[in-house]
């Protein structure tokens, strides 16, 4: 276990709150009908994105998924630009042309949410190859779901990263389901982490509700990657607070038993308690962070609502580089 600094703890707590507030608000607004399209919320899984990204700088890359808001926020994307994107506004991070599933900010090292399950594997490998080729010590984190672990790209990507010892950390967010399909049904292996054996790389499963566990495992993996020792597969056991996407009835979720207990664990509450217990944060600091986060998200909504829709000409722009 690596002790968190106060500064890191504050950063993490802020990002966790930003994600939760952002998602709760998007949920509220979507329900009211103001946002169109498919929206997949990250709420509940905050410890993963933040615990991992706490080890990264803007020079490091991540690839993300359809459930990408949390990764974006943890990687430093602007809340205003994100919210405006989800609203389809011109001020969005992608000028309103991408939407929730395609938020990206390459300058921040965020290589894009991805509407294709498993789409991030090879892209992460490519960014890792670039990091290695240019002799940087930058790393890449490839976030993916338990469902994505059954795509062929998982196998091809990890194998390539392993034979070339690329600086890529594969982080599986095992939230027990892919849409309505349980991981226990769709994967022949009991854990995703055990699949690391197929590539002779380290594989570790951690409690994804426990920020410290995620932070420690990611820290080790990132360090390994920076040192040129190759990829690691980390499986974080987590849960999503909302449905697969907005509108999901969630019939498949357990109403009692171990799954329900897991579901009821709140990684943010847990971390708040830990941080205060370990004197990384004072109660006041934690409260202030929460309050500021609420305000920032409210401001992002205001920004998005006030922003104009894209100009009609934007339809034909950005297809080719001239």
């Amino acid at each position, binding site marked *: 276990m690596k002790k968190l600094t106060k500064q890191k703890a504050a950063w993490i707590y802020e990002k966790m709150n930003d994600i939760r507030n952002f998602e709760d608000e998007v949920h509220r607004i979507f329900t009211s009908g103001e946002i*169109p*399209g*498919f929206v997949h919320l990250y709420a509940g899984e905050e410890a993963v994105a933040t615990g991992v990204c706490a080890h990264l700088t803007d020079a490091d890359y991540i690839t993300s998924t359809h459930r990408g808001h949390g990764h974006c926020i943890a990687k430093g994307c602007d809340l205003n630009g994100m919210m405006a*994107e989800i609203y*389809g*506004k*011109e001020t969005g991070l*992608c000028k*309103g*042309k*991408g*939407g*929730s*599933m*395609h938020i990206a900010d390459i300058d921040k090292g965020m290589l894009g949410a*991805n*509407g*294709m*399950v*498993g789409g991030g594997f090879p892209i992460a490998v490519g960014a890792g190859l670039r990091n290695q080729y240019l002799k940087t010590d930058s790393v890449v984190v490839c976030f993916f779901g338990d*469902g*994505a672990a*059954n*795509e*062929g790209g998982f196998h091809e990507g990890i194998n390539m990263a392993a034979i070339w010892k690329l600086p890529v950390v594969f982080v599986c967010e095992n939230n027990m389901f*892919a*849409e*309505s*399909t*349980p991981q*226990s*049904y*769709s*994967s022949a292996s009991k854990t995703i982490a055990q699949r690391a054996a197929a590539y002779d790389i380290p594989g570790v499963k951690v409690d994804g509700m426990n920020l410290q566990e995620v932070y420690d495992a990611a820290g080790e993996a990132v360090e390994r990657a920076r040192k040129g020792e190759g990829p690691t597969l980390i499986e974080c056991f987590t849960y999503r607070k909302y449905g697969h996407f907005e509108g999901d*009835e969630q*019939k*498949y979720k*357990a*109403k009692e038993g171990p799954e329900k207990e897991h579901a009821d664990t709140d990684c943010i509450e847990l971390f708040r308690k830990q941080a205060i217990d370990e004197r990384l944060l004072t109660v006041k600091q934690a409260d202030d962070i929460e309050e500021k986060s609420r305000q920032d998200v409210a401001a992002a909504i205001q920004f998005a609502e006030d922003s104009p*829709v*894209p100009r*009609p000409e*934007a*339809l*034909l722009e950005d*297809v080719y580089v001239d």
Partner: protein
Amino acid sequence: MTRKITFMQAINEALDQSMDRDNNVILLGEDIAGGATIDHLGNEGAWGGVFGVTKGLVEKHGRERVIDTPISEMGYMGAAVGAAATGLRPVPELMFNDFIGFCFDTLLAQGSKMRYMFGGKAKIPMTVRTCHGAGASAAAQHSGSYYGMLGSIPGIKVVVPSNPYDAKGLLNAAIEDDNIVIFSEDKTLYGIKDEVPEDYYTVEIGKAKVKREGSDLTIVTIGKMLYVANEVADTLEKEGISVEVIDLVTAAPWDQETIISSVKKTGRLIIIDEANPHNNTATDISAVVANKAFDYLDGPIKCVCAPNTPVPFATNLEQLYLPNKDKVLDVASELIEDLKKS
């Protein structure tokens, strides 16, 4: 007996009745039942597909026949090819046609070519259900229209129903067909209602349908574009222009006879196709007509398609992306200039 049901219900009914008729018909796809192996659900489906199209089927036909797959498009689409080659009649669902890139080989190089490569000694009776189309704010990776691209592959048939009646009849016909048939559903049509017979019936694959007879201008449409053409025809009719509207129904191999004989009558042709503008079904029709019915043409052939861009997310841009009445009227005006003068 007919009654009004939705496009989605019509598809569901076709699957249900086809499964009743033939025990070799099985369904495969991601969350087409949903909640596999979850105790408190048992045979109850959690989802019935992302849009609910397959709702209720697992309860009736069981999980052996309505099979939830892992997110392994190449795996289950290729499995469908293997199951079809060995005697089943699988109906895999590709949740969005945009995911084709994950299983393209199974269609491009395996399923479609087996019969030919094997000297006629294989049959691949499988129907791939999928959905296409913009207009649902589903953004660039969930809104494309790839029926034309798929239709360019020899050995594959592609049908694109425009209404509940055809949807049911065509899907039944597709499942009966001994070839690979791509059944491509416009996701924005799922809610439309129309009269559909309760009994099992088929609609012929390969035949276009003349939806409205006319003598001045032929408009050929694919799927939902029929409704755009109808609006255009209504408007033009008020100006005294008589429009023949043809629903292509089967995008590949498409019905040359019906289209050509219409063009021979009207001398003017517009094709509306939501696909990106190049190398699509509209341009294919245009090329065939420009070859085979050139002497009957009174003016240029016009294709109204999506622009050469991915589908944008913002609602206003997405609406601009889609072919619509105004865009068609615009090109029509060029064709019918002389008619108006007379």
